[in-house]
């Protein structure tokens, strides 16, 4: 056995005699011996790494047979090996699920709420098809928290039609914590926390540019996003990233008609620069979010009779047409977020961290009004927030580690005068001071964690109502605590359990709302004497991973004292404009429980299936009735066929999925419209990854609502006025170079 090129002997080439089922390996001189073969014809194959395989047939007649084979060198490119691994963005004993990689790529172009629907137990509370708020285990708005790169997002989250002011394109990973995390993140994190995190900055000379282009047929959506990350070769540890995205969409089409004035546009930017050395790390970050969203024209009703008429009609009175232009009613929202973060390793056990965040949220809401007023917002709010976190991390050689910290939140909300409307919420100043300690013990397969936090909050409000200055000075304080454990029961089975208390002071709108809500033909009246909500959430998660089966089941129970909800008083206001329902804010004990599941099974090398779903029960245990806007039971299942070979790391996959949503049969005693019927939707998705000389091209073709089914979702507030979005073809191109 010798090389073809240079006649050198080949060592360790492999010969296989098929018929005899015998093999041998060549020695240093390139020779090998196979003994005890009977005379006859044999097929042999000779293999050596980096050389072309030789197949030959030999005829063995006598006792010995000699032949020299020359192996030809063959260059053979091995496909790049991708290592798939994942470390959670937060180390906690609560149930955590993250959206990243391929799943996140498939969700590109969708807003944060829509993207997160891919996680079992997360649904949306939406206002039409452009405004959606994530719901974790039945909780949303101020009962969950969103962190933009580590800073708690402070917008006007109290409003049902106020979507989170964040661009999902800035994230490389979106994590959902399904437990109460008030201790770690501060008040309001009762139902869960959403972490929107970019990739860490490069610390060595490297560069990566990513381009996303997305087009959608429904609403003629166009979306472009670019990000560029780089690391410095001159200054070791210096890295940066710039990222931006733009989005434009016109009127949404329901299967039978266009929804008038439902276009939107979005322009976002973020930039980050950081330095990291073994002892010191500094990072600055800035993100800007800016959107204009049209509100369905027909949803702005004049009085109760208008509202009842359109509910009865079940759809807008006119068919609508396609346009990109956005008219009143509309929202124009921008959000600035700047962050400065630093850590310093005091010694090998102690690390000092400081993080400061500045946010400015500007929200303008325009109604259909007469004359010059039409050009003025009817709600014009500016919210400034400063957050400061100082905390000390310790990790020791023994099994203990932990964090001790102080957190300050300072907030100022101003109504910009000149709206011609008495403000819905007053001007206010808020300061929140929190002290916390978290400790963790981990040994082998067991991890135990506990934490304590104390918060004090003070709010001063002021507003003129009928030329009368109304002021209030409110103070809240609370202890919260949690305890949890993570147990690796066997190499395939893990269990986590976490019991946490959480709290949320009443929101300014719940305390002081006073005014007409056009979308609901309702007059909402706040109650300044509301108490803080206090909750206990117990979350358990069981994970099982064995060969072809992977399964994750989360079960939880959440009891909330002083749960604040809005309830019709039964009273009606009669005015020259017509009649309106009156709603007031009440408090009761609430009990939420339910479970989520997510599982997948690999049937063959090419065929796999998945299923995920969630069930939530939420009850007012004082009144023994149900709360409005709790997601109904739902399930998403599908099968995927992978055209690629098993070992091929490039995706080439077709997925057919089916979303089943039950009717919400647990309705509150009063709702202006009954819950819509159950529905089933089919989606089709094709995802292809192509390797272009080290650059990666990912192509996605998706059809949402494949059969153009007309349906209404209980959790969409505009189900009163219109069907949901119809069929939508989407093309998603992602290029990384």
């Amino acid at each position, binding site marked *: 056995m010798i090389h073809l090129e240079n006649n050198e002997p080949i060592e360790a080439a492999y010969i296989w005699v098929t018929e005899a089922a015998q093999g041998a390996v060549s020695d240093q001189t390139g020779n090998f011996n196979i003994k005890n073969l009977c005379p006859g014809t044999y097929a042999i194959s000779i293999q050596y790494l980096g050389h072309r395989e030789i197949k030959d047939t030999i005829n063995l007649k006598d006792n010995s047979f000699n032949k020299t084979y020359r192996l030809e060198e063959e260059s053979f490119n091995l496909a790049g090996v991708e290592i798939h691994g994942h470390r959670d963005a937060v180390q906690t004993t609560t149930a955590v699920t993250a959206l990243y990689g391929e799943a996140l790529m498939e969700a590109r172009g969708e807003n944060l709420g829509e993207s997160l629907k891919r996680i079992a137990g997360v649904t949306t509370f939406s206002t039409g098809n452009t405004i959606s708020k994530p719901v974790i285990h039945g909780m949303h708005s101020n009962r969950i928290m969103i962190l933009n790169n580590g800073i708690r997002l402070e917008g006007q989250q109290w409003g049902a039609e106020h979507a989170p002011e964040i661009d999902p394109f800035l994230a490389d990973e979106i994590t959902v914590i399904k437990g109460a995390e008030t201790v770690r993140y501060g008040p309001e994190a009762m139902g869960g926390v959403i972490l929107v995190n970019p990739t860490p900055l490069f610390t060595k000379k490297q560069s990566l540019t990513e381009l996303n282009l997305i087009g959608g047929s429904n609403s003629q959506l166009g979306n472009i996003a670019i990000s560029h990350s780089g690391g410095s070769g001159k200054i070791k540890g210096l890295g940066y990233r710039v990222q931006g995205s733009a989005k434009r969409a016109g009127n949404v089409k329901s299967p039978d008609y266009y929804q008038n004035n439902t276009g939107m546009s979005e322009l976002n930017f973020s930039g980050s620069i950081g330095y990291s050395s073994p002892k010191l790390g500094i990072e600055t970050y800035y993100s800007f979010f800016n959107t204009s969203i049209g509100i369905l024209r027909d949803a*702005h009703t004049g009085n109760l009779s208008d509202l009842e008429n359109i509910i009865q009609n079940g759809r807008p009175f006119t068919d609508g047409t396609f346009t990109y232009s956005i008219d009143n009613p509309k929202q124009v929202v921008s959000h600035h977020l700047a962050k400065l973060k630093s850590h310093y390793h005091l010694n090998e056990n102690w690390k000092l961290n400081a993080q400061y965040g500045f946010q400015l949220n500007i929200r303008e809401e325009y109604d*259909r*009004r007469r004359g010059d007023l039409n050009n003025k917002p009817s709600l014009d709010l500016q919210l400034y927030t*400063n957050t400061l976190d100082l905390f000390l991390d310790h990790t020791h050689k023994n099994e203990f580690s932990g964090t001790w910290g102080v957190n300050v939140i300072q907030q*100022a909300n101003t109504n910009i005068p000149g709206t011609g*409307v008495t403000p819905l919420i007053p001007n206010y100043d808020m300061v929140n001071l929190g002290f916390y300690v978290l400790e963790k013990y981990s040994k082998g397969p067991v991890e135990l964690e506990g934490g304590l936090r104390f918060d004090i909050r003070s709010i001063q409000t002021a507003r003129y109502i009928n030329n009368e200055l109304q002021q209030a000075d409110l103070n809240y304080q609370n202890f919260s605590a949690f305890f949890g454990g993570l147990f690796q029961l066997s190499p395939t089975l893990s269990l986590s359990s976490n019991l946490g208390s959480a709290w949320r002071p009443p929101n300014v709108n719940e305390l002081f709302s006073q005014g007409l809500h056009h979308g609901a033909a309702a007059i909402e009246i706040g109650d300044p004497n509301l108490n803080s909500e206090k909750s206990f959430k117990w979350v358990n998660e069981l994970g099982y991973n064995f060969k072809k089966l992977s399964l994750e089941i989360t079960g939880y129970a959440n009891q909330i004292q002083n749960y604040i909800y809005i309830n019709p008083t039964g*009273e009606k206001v009669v005015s020259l404009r017509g009649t309106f329902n009156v709603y007031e804010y009440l408090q009761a004990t609430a009990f939420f429980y339910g479970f989520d599941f997510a599982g997948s099974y690999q049937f063959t090398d090419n065929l796999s299936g998945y299923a995920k779903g969630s069930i939530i029960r939420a009850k007012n245990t004082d009144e023994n009735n149900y709360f409005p806007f709790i997601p109904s039971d739902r399930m998403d299942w599908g099968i995927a066929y992978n055209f690629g070979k098993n070992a091929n790391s490039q995706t080439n996959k077709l997925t057919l999925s089916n979303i089943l949503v039950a009717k919400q049969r647990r309705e509150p005693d009063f709702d202006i419209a009954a819950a819509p019927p159950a529905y089933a939707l089919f989606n089709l998705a094709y995802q292809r990854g192509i390797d272009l000389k080290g650059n990666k091209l990912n192509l996605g073709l998706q059809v949402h609502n494949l059969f153009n089914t007309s349906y209404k979702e209980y959790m969409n507030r505009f189900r009163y006025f219109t069907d949901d979005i119809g069929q939508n073809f989407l093309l998603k191109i992602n290029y990384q170079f």
Partner: protein
Amino acid sequence: MFNSKKTFFYALLLASFAFTSCDSDDPEAENDGEVITDVILNFQELNAAGTPTGAITSFKASDPQGIEVGATPTIQNVTLTKGKTYQLKIEVRNSIENEDITAEILTEADEHQFYFLGTAFVGSGVLTYTYADPTGDLLGVVGKVVVAQNPGFNNANMRIVLRHALDKNFSGATNPNFENFIQAGGETDLDITFPLILN
């Protein structure tokens, strides 16, 4: 442990916190520009030539606080004489701000329209309404009302609805007694029912 660079950094951080820390502005009272507190129906008799003659009789619906819980509007009875023809001029005011909203409605004649409904106008022939806006728009700020000589019944009611942002070209929308006005889109700015007494 701390070097001077580090100390400087944290000092800067704290300073920036103090610097950007800000208070909310003092609130200002808002002029509620959208509120309609008074709707006045001004009737004046028309002679055979169609010229307004004689005194103007006014009937008013008022809600001094606008939309407020607990307060109901005061609506006067409309008294008209059988067999007579009147010019009806509608006046809309915001008495809190002392604003004449009629002017705004006239400016946006293409987005507004009054509808005349209730038993007085629909199906009974008690009152017959025709738009007579000087600009030629079908608006209803000015109109002609004919009172039947021998109405089938007395004590009818006049429901007056002002629609905003409607599709004025919608089929049937040109009829001042169009009951399905809601189908033309838009929203209701006013919806008042006046009791009618005929002499």
